[in-house]
């Protein structure tokens, strides 16, 4: 059913996927906001590269389209939009997470181990590159942690986007070809619109609260 994977192709994929995870861990400890956005852009570039490798290994043109969309959307447009937002609302650069850096590093490490445990029973179903599914789940879990560990609205948006990267990695790892093109394009536009909407909301929160610290959003209870 599946065309034989070339050994090098599989190894390149595993390497690229692990680099995505390394960047995710970097996000957990990097205190500067703009650097965070650039790390996300780099992570998305790796995702595009993975799609490119898959496309060339299987000669599937529509996976190239996915790679191209990822580059346009997540490597160029979204980081540009987010950086512009950061400049517009002139927020201070430093992120103040709830949990300090060594502790967040440890938690992310533990979550990665958990992801490998969870993925073990289904790794046999992976069509490509060993461990990519485990890495995808690790991206999901650490993204979740990043989201609850951050006060600033934009960093929560970034965490959500890295989780989405994890899901797209899982899509490639589990299905070889990704999903039908109409679905991929739809997801792409949804993510772009989501970031625009979130941008509007962040802007309004900043105007109303004179801050972007979402831990100040605490008036509504049960």
């Amino acid at each position, binding site marked *: *059913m*599946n065309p034989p994977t070339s050994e090098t192709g599989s190894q390149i994929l595993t390497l690229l996927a692990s680099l995505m995870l390394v960047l995710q861990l970097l996000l957990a400890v990097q205190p500067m906001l703009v650097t965070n956005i650039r790390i996300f852009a780099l992570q998305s570039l790796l995702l595009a590269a993975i799609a490119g490798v898959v496309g060339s290994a299987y000669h599937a043109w529509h996976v190239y389209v996915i790679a191209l969309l990822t580059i346009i959307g997540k490597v160029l447009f979204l980081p540009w939009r987010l950086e512009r937002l950061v400049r517009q609302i002139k927020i201070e650069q430093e992120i103040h997470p709830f949990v300090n850096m060594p502790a967040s590093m440890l938690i992310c490490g533990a979550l990665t181990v958990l992801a490998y445990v969870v993925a073990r*029973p*289904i790794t046999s*179903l992976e*069509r490509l590159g060993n461990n990519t599914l485990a890495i995808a789940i690790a991206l*999901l879990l650490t993204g*979740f942690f990043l*989201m609850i560990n951050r006060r600033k*609205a934009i960093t*929560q948006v970034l965490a*959500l986007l890295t*989780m*989405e990267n994890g*899901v797209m990695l*899982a*899509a490639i790892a*589990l*299905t*070889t*070809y990704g*999903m*039908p093109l*109409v*679905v991929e394009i*739809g*997801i792409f536009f*949804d993510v772009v*619109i*989501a970031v625009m*909407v*979130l941008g*509007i*909301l962040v802007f*309004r*929160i900043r105007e*109303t*609260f004179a801050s972007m610290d*979402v831990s100040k*959003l*605490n*008036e*509504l209870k*049960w």
Partner: protein
Amino acid sequence: MLLTSILGVPFVVGLLCAIARPRALVESLNIAGFVSALALGVKLFKTVATDNGTAVTEWDEFLRADALSAWMVLLISVVSLATSLYAVHYFRRGLAAGVVNERRFREFYVLTPLFATGMFLVVLANNLGVMWIAVEATALSSVLLVALYNRKTSLEAAWKYVMLGGLGLVLALFGTIFTYAAAIGKTPGETLPSFNWSRLVAMAPQLDHHLMTLAFIFVLVGYGTKAGLAPMHTWLPDAHSEAPSPTSAMLSGVSLKIAVYALLRFHIITMACLGSGFSRNLLLGFGLFSMLLAGPFILVQKNLKRMLAYSSLEHVGLICVAVGMNAPLTVFGALLHMGYHALTKPVLFFAAGNIHQQFHTLDFRRLGPGLVRTMPVTALLLGLAAVAVSGLPPFGLFVSELTVIAGGFTSNHAWVSVVILAALIVVFCGVLNKLAGLLLGPSDGAQPRETISASNVAAMSLPLGTLLLFTVWLPGSFRQLIEQAVGIIRGMP
């Protein structure tokens, strides 16, 4: 062309409202759009019901409507129509009082038809990936509606809604991908299997069992967040109470059920694939938990719209429990309940909107007794709708709840029925106690009497009238359609 036009009409209305200038034109475009959507919905319902439940398909099966979809299309168009009728008076008053500005007014009339388009696409899309995209689209179009008033609290509510919703949707996408992966390599000669629900159901027993199990868990947590199932419901009371009342009505009346619908589509595949009660029991558990959780929160609630939001939580819970029991009678009750609830909840939110515009608060302690003296019409309709929503005769929710409970007793789920009864009694006491305190009693007499327009009364009494009508007289074709939908949900079309 029927399905395409159901999607196209509200979408075009949304675009037109973005360019149309005069306010009256924008308002009437919305109403006209939803009237025609309802007419198309009725036509679809007739086509499906008379054709013995054969699905209508278009665009090479890209769009597909079976009995279940047709039923949901009806609910969406009815609630949207009631909303657009009510919104006219609501926003005119808001503009006059200066609580909304021109820009927000236009935002509402552009986003609401798009929100409805998204919901129509959820129920009409055959492709599960497209269904996910549509659910995400409904979330994105409603977020700005929740934040419409730009108050601190509404921004907080919108932020929670979009973050929790986004998180849920990422998980749902994960589950959707797992479902797709479960189908890979099962049909010889196809590298990319079809992602269409109809195809996946047909080949369900061949799907990878392990992946389907995982997929359903992810989808349940994901779409369950959008459906407001406890314990993922925390965004729900915030968003429903902070949104403008017309939007609250849409969110509570249909948007929650759209998420339940998405969940049901996966439930059907999972059930056919695993052949066990796995997904059923999960739905039953989450549903019961939501029902039991809603009661205490209603008892201690101090805000009218938050109380209504918790009541929605309870009703969504009941629908999931009823589907989880999987007896013909309970599933029938669940679908009937969806319809009756969709007719009742908007009226409650509309009345709450009137009260908020009159007194600028929804706090029970500050609204205080005797509302029936200052706002007689609103109070009467609110009272009637409250009687309906707590499951008292002569309103339909009594019938559907009784159907579910009776179905539970006759299908070896007696204990579930007992728990449902207990939860319903708690909610019943809570809602009626709160509203009796609000509506009845002497008023201090210092408040001015309400001024209420004909369109406002019509928007509130039409759904209630329809509810009464369909309670005493459920046409045969409706019964047929719901029975066909029950067959689909129980996996025996």
